[in-house]
């Protein structure tokens, strides 16, 4: 059900996004940083689901909050002439890799356990 919802949302968003007018190049860096922030929350959400600690409200607030906050930080950085967005990208991408690692280990564990169980079953029968 949720996967279906995600697919429908993605297709809908793609259609809207393709038909929207082009934004000026200056603003595209804000857009990029907000995309990275949102993706970070998505992976964070997947990880916490696997750990059984998923909270929908936290997920939604993180999704929008991080995106908006990262845009504001980028804006501030531009005003201060400091590349704050680099820091934001480092943090977000680092967290994304962390989360991806957790997801990967979870599935590896799952599959190897399945294999062990199968082997155990065969040994028991014998």
């Amino acid at each position, binding site marked *: 059900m*949720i996967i279906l919802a*995600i697919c*429908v*949302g993605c297709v809908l*968003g*793609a259609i809207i*996004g393709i038909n929207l007018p*082009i934004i000026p*190049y200056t603003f595209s860096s804000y857009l990029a940083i907000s995309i990275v922030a949102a*993706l970070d929350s998505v992976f964070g959400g997947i990880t916490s689901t696997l750990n059984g600690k998923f909270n929908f409200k936290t997920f939604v607030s993180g999704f929008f909050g991080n995106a908006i906050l990262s845009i504001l930080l980028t804006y501030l950085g531009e005003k201060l002439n400091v590349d704050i967005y680099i820091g934001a990208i480092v943090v977000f991408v680092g967290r994304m890799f962390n989360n991806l690692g957790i997801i990967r280990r979870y599935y590896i564990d799952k599959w190897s356990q399945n294999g062990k169980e199968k082997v155990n079953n065969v040994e028991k029968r014998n």
Partner: protein
Amino acid sequence: MKKEPKAIIITIVIMSAILSCVMFMQFKVVNQTNIEEIETMREDELNEAVANWKEKYEQASKELEDTNERIKEYRDKLQDNVEIKELVEKELAEAQENFGLTEVIGDGIIVTIMDNEEKSVKAMDLLDLVNELKVAGSKAISINEQRVTNLTDLVDISTKYIKVNSENISSPYVIKAIGDKTHLKSALTIKNGYFDLLQKEGYNIKIEEKNNIKINKYLNDVTLKYIKR
């Protein structure tokens, strides 16, 4: 699969829609930036403006160089008095020609406008004509043998007379202009142009192309009495 509450499903749809929408917008920006940089980049517009100003600067500095060279030429020829006299005379002749102080001959057109019973030609009509001719590239114009220069006045006196270069003239008005014949003629006879307009008003107007038109020089005083340098 367990059933989720409706609110969560709707929120997830909206969130994924926003995310993919923003992502596709960004893809589009990144794709388009390489193709039409000038349209999307505000920085590029500024760059273009800078390039324009640079070009203007280069032009100005080239002019300066030219002038400096001419000054140098004068200096060089200063040693030889005969040569400088020739040079100055040449420049003087050029300046006089530009200003309308010499008689000139060339190909061009002759426009004749006549008053009719009800209407008489106004100074503004002649002024319009002169401006049209100037736009079309004419470098020498005369009205009833009065040379039109940058000091020329063109004023209505009464219904029958117009003052040009402080001389009264009356109908028929013969305007001579030297320039590219076809260019001048087409500038006047263009649809809804000067010719059409005056004919609609009821004037009698005639345009003819002619070779070797002679245009008189400007006869009035050109000394500057009140301008202080």
